[in-house]
């Protein structure tokens, strides 16, 4: 697949991208390298994996990382209950060696996302989300899979990938990742979209919403993000929710009142509400002057 073909597929998936993103995805695909994506929360890191699954026509296998995640939740686990039942049932009918051998077979193996992704006949997109939340031991455990596309299970041996998944790892940089993991990945850092891209996303995802309202929403969100006093910057998903909510409420113009009524869609803590109130007092309208001031007063 060349870069033009990849762009076409992303277009078909209705995804708004820039040249940098397209090139990075192409490089990762071409080299068969996992792609490590870093950036602030809500910039669309996870979305890239979903779009790639759709563009490449593959299934998406997702592993959500958290503190304490271990291989039994990520790779495989033996079905202990079923094994115990089997022991009880077959105790008299099978020799102990046979019984032991049968207990560690595929029948008793519970596949978790990592194993599922490499044992799939058809290549999948594997999303390892928020890897920074997992422990460093888990990161080290991932290395074998990411570099060799194989995993080792003590009772079974080494399992090689039937198909090579396209691996996407995301991180909010809650803690620095190890050099070893970074070295095995292609790297992408994403920032919040600029005004033009945000507007394109709004138009693409919410074609039924009035274009003028989309522009006002995009501008207001840009202003909020550039306001250093706002602690939690609005994400792209929140922008979309906000525009959809305004549209559902029948609001056609982003007035200060409309902003106040619906601010809960973009601001998620009390301190940020206070900042918004203060900026409303000074500026009166958070549409950033896009309205031309005609609805003031």
């Amino acid at each position, binding site marked *: 697949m*060349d*870069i033009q073909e990849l762009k076409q597929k992303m277009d078909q998936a209705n995804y708004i991208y820039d*040249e*940098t993103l397209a*090139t*990075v995805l*192409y*490089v*990762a695909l*071409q*080299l068969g*390298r996992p792609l*490590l994506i*870093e950036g602030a929360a809500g910039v669309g890191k996870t979305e890239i994996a979903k779009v790639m699954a759709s563009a490449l026509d593959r299934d998406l296998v997702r592993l959500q990382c958290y*503190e304490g995640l271990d291989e039994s939740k990520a790779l495989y686990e033996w079905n*202990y*209950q079923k094994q*115990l039942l089997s022991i009880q049932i077959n105790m008299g009918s099978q020799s102990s060696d046979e019984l032991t051998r049968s207990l560690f077979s595929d029948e008793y193996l519970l596949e978790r996302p990592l194993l599922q992704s490499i044992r799939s006949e058809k290549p999948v997109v594997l999303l390892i989300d928020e890897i*920074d939340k997992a*422990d*460093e*031991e888990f990161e080290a455990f991932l290395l074998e899979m990411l570099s060799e596309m194989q995993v080792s299970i003590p009772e079974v041996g080494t399992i090689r990938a039937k198909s090579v998944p396209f691996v996407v790892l995301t991180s909010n*940089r*809650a*803690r*620095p990742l190890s*050099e070893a993991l*970074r*070295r095995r*990945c*292609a*790297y*992408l*850092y994403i920032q919040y979209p600029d005004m033009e891209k945000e507007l394109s996303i709004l138009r693409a995802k919410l074609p039924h919403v009035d274009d003028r309202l989309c522009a006002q929403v995009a501008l207001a969100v840009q202003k909020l993000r550039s306001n*250093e*006093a706002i*602690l939690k910057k609005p994400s792209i998903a929140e922008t979309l929710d906000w525009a959809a909510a305004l549209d559902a409420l029948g609001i056609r113009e982003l007035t200060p009142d409309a902003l106040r009524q619906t601010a809960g869609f973009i601001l998620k803590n009390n301190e940020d509400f206070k900042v918004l109130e203060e900026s409303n007092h000074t500026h009166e309208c958070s549409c950033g002057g896009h309205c031309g001031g005609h609805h003031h007063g």
Partner: protein
Amino acid sequence: MAEPQVYLEKLSAFSRMLQLQGLAVSPKETADATQILIAIGFEDRQQVKTALRTIYAKSRDQQLIFDRVFDGFFLSEEQMRQQAQQQAQQDRQIQENIEQLRKSGHADGLTEEQQYAFGTMSEEERQRLQEFAEKYKENAKRNPNLYSNFIHSVFAKALLEQQMRLEDAAVGCEGADPELGILYRDISQFSDVEIPKAISIIQTISNQINGELTAKRNRKTHSGKLDFRRTIRKGLETGGRFYHLHYKRKPSRRKRLVLLCDVSGSMMQFSEFALRFIQNLNQVSDSSRVFLFSEEIYEADPFSLQNMDLFRNYVKECGVYGKGTDLGAALEQLCSFNPKALNQYTTLIILSDTKTINQPRAMEALLEAKRQAGRVIWLNPIPQRHWPHIRSVQAFATLCTMICCSTLQELAAACRRLTSV
């Protein structure tokens, strides 16, 4: 970019350049870069840059280094011509200025570096120095011993400042990225509008450090005592058989820190940032004591440190604001507290730029504090490259561990070090 062969040969040299800049580049990366360049071609410079950046740079910091090296390495012919012309013109101008200095006779006693620094000065600054020398020319003739030394010392001071400015300009190259730039800038130079941004960065970094600490704590080996409750509960999943034994964790002891903060006018901003950083660390937050000092010492209550306004108001109300700095008196008071504030389990952290009245007294008091406390660490906001020129820094650095914290990046590194003490 019409000759792919040339660029393929250059890739290994480019990889070497990246290595010299601190990027971990292995032959695998160079092989990948070659493969990808063959696939995408060389027509689009921006695309080539993005593709190579994806392969070589593995973090945001590394991306910035990569961009700088790439732009310096893969120049277009037009850029190369322009840069060469600019450099030649600049060198010619510097040489002319040095010649002018030599002709005027003021170059005697100045080193090559100082003469070069003079050459890089602006027209206005050079004029001012020349006028000063002319003004005292007659005096120098009458009393050469006295005035020659005086003129020389003024020249040397101005040239040293210029050398420091040149060094600062070279250090500030990371400032190109607004987000990361603030990490590498001198804290004392933050403008009011940058302070909220800096605070939010401090929050992010302290969250990172807390994350690292939690991970480190989780990695700690167990205490050796069996946790019956967890073992039995887990065993229920496997029909009462204990496949996994669970052990009790080792109790973690939090650090006891005593912070002594200089809150004189020039130190206020740094102290506020440093305190915010340290207070954000879970590992130390509930067991530290904070003292503010100028000529006297006051213990701050934790509530007053919660935000910048509260902190500033508190400092103004408690009467330490606007006074001179007397570290010696402050340390003596701290050492004489009853019950004792310092003991062998505490780490004393001093936030100060070493500028104090009565330095000998301060040094004696520091020695006493060092005797009482388990460890003394000094966080100094003066950039390390200036330390050799400041006597008080050199004097205090011999008595304790002094860490440079002129930027948020250095402050974060210092905090990481504090938590591992």
